[in-house]
């Protein structure tokens, strides 16, 4: 390992230049016919013209680009290697969660994968499961902000709304598809996360909660009043549904549809099931992303910031960047969920983004056990399914809902899963 690291360090400037020169030579060879020579129409006859300056610029750009790329790659690889090596030599390594929780996690994944197959003709079950997954994804997003970074955010629904409306507007006014709008909406929500983060950098706890609460309301009020963009209280309707790699879910027509392409009989349930798997995939990606982040220095900095901000700063951590990154990433994940929500409903209005939603998402994070990924899943199941199951109790169902929340807090004050998994384990290698 050590020699490998040294080899990376050992690349001399001359070698880098040689490498870049080789690349630009290839670029030159390819560039002569493709860029250097061109045909021009002159008086009806084709004549060959040369574009040497352009070719030269192209080769120079390749040379500089290759140098930068090599440098960046080597630097990055070296750091990663050294870090891994250091951690490994210390007899410590990253570990997954405890066996029982791992089993529960895999079990939940298995159930969620087969659920729409088992209930393929029961639209209600798949729909409800989709709702649960939306909240799971929102919970995982908010978990970054509240659970890991310890920033109490009462206006998380704002980012959900930004994501949903970004897709709504892009799709209905500019004709963007779901897949085109998804990254843009995520970026948009992240930007709003930073906009909220900037002025609140110095706030903590209750004060931060008040400002974020206000922010959530501001976004909602803007959506109600900016009629030209958001349709005001009427919202945005006929938002296109996501397609399966360009194949729409609709009754057979002129263009190929999902059903006709795969030779299936058309059924409206196909779309419901597709939507379910889509949010499942998005949620799983979110989970993977967040649990990877936790093990990176930035994720550890989030948690340390939650524990003690002054100590963090004294450790040389830039508190501003750490907080803003938590806000931005949490907001981005909320934005993704928002896009999905808009695409699933086909209609959005400010009604869907009230404070009540923020409160439920926050309740999911807190009841689940701050920072626990699996806890979020369990809490979303409880909080979404309870009102559904309680439909028979009519007006008493919110009472049951409240009582359940109180019971959880009495029984498990730290949340359903309050155990925090360390990101590093020590294997005793240091004793050697």
């Amino acid at each position, binding site marked *: 390992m050590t020699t490998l690291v040294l080899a990376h360090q050992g690349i001399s400037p001359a070698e880098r230049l040689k490498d870049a020169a080789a690349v630009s030579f290839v670029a030159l060879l390819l560039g002569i016919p493709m860029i250097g020579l061109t045909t021009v129409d002159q008086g009806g006859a084709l004549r060959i013209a040369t574009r040497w300056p352009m070719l030269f610029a192209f080769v120079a750009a390749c040379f500089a680009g290759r140098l930068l790329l090599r440098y960046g790659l080597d630097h990055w690889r070296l750091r990663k290697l050294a870090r891994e090596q250091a951690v490994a030599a210390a007899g410590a390594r990253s570990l997954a969660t405890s066996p029982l929780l791992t089993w529960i996690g895999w079990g939940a994944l298995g159930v969620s994968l087969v659920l729409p197959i088992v209930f393929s003709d029961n639209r209600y079950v798949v729909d409800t499961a989709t709702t649960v997954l939306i909240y799971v994804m929102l919970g995982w997003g908010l978990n970054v902000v509240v659970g890991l970074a310890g920033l109490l955010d009462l206006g998380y629904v704002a980012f959900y709304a930004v994501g949903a409306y970004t897709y709504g507007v892009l799709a209905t006014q500019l004709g963007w598809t779901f897949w085109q709008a998804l990254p843009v909406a995520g970026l948009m929500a992240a930007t709003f996360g930073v906009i909220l983060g900037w002025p609140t950098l110095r706030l903590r706890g209750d004060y931060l909660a008040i400002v974020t609460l206000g922010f959530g309301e501001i976004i909602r009020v803007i959506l109600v009043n900016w009629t030209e963009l958001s349709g005001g209280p009427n919202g945005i309707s006929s938002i296109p549904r996501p397609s399966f790699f360009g194949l729409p879910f609709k009754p057979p027509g002129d263009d190929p549809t999902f059903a006709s392409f795969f030779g299936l009989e058309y059924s409206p349930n196909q779309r419901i099931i597709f939507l379910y798997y889509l949010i499942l995939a998005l949620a799983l990606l979110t989970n993977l992303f967040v649990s990877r982040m936790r093990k990176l220095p930035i994720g550890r900095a989030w948690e340390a910031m939650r*524990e003690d901000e002054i100590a963090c700063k004294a450790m040389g951590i830039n508190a501003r960047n750490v907080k803003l990154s938590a806000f931005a990433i949490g907001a981005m994940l909320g934005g993704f969920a928002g896009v999905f929500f808009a695409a699933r409903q086909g209609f959005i209005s400010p009604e869907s983004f009230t404070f009540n939603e923020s409160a439920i998402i926050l309740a999911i994070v807190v009841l689940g056990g701050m920072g626990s990924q699996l806890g979020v899943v369990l809490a979303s199941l409880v909080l979404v399914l309870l009102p559904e199951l309680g439909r028979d109790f009519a007006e008493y169902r919110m009472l049951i809902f409240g009582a359940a929340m109180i019971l959880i807090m009495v029984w498990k004050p730290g949340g359903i899963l309050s155990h925090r998994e*360390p990101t590093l384990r020590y294997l005793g290698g240091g004793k050697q």
Partner: protein
Amino acid sequence: MMLQLSGVHAHYGYIHALHGVDIDVQVGEVVTLIGANGAGKSTLMMSIFGQPRASGGRIVFDGEDITQLPTHEIARRGIALVPEGRRIFSRMTVLENLQMGAVLGEEMNFAVDLKRMYQLFPILEERCQQRAGTLSGGEQQMLAIARALMSRPQLLLLDEPSLGLAPLYIKKIFQIVRELNRDHGMTILLVEQNAHHALRVAHRGYVLQHGQIILSGTGRELLANPEVHAAYLAGGHAATAA
């Protein structure tokens, strides 16, 4: 000169906590700052880190004026702080705490430094998987010191390391301070209420009263000074002897 404070003032809102303090720390020295409760010792320590920012005067570290630098930039210059009350990351494990300390070096020397810390503080190796908040006060203090050392600082600031610890641990902490300085050449600025122990470890000391330096000298001189003895040692000595 490693660290020089000249005419430093600091305010907490309307409270004028430091009235033009001048102190300096040379390379390889242990310098202690003693004084009664509320004299401004911790304020002075924290104002080096810009928390609160000095409202007057200059703080120069290693030839660079750091008075206006943000806290994390000051840390990056090579100053590490063991804050008052330890401020460890209590829900994270001991190992993770140490890893946070190594953030500045991008964890490049993590393995080597970790081993060094385990040698200095064997108890930390035993407890490395435990949540830091479950350690005893003395162990937490050691963790806080080890965490600070993980960044390979040039200057270590220790803010009341003996506060609230059992006598045995107090002894141990001061032993470590001496060892760090003697064997590892660490430059240390130590703020203490426990004047007796602090002055015995330190090469030089300053006495702070109402936000002003009223006395300075070598540790030995201050220990022998009747004023210091009457104000800070008589009580403290009795307490440690008890």
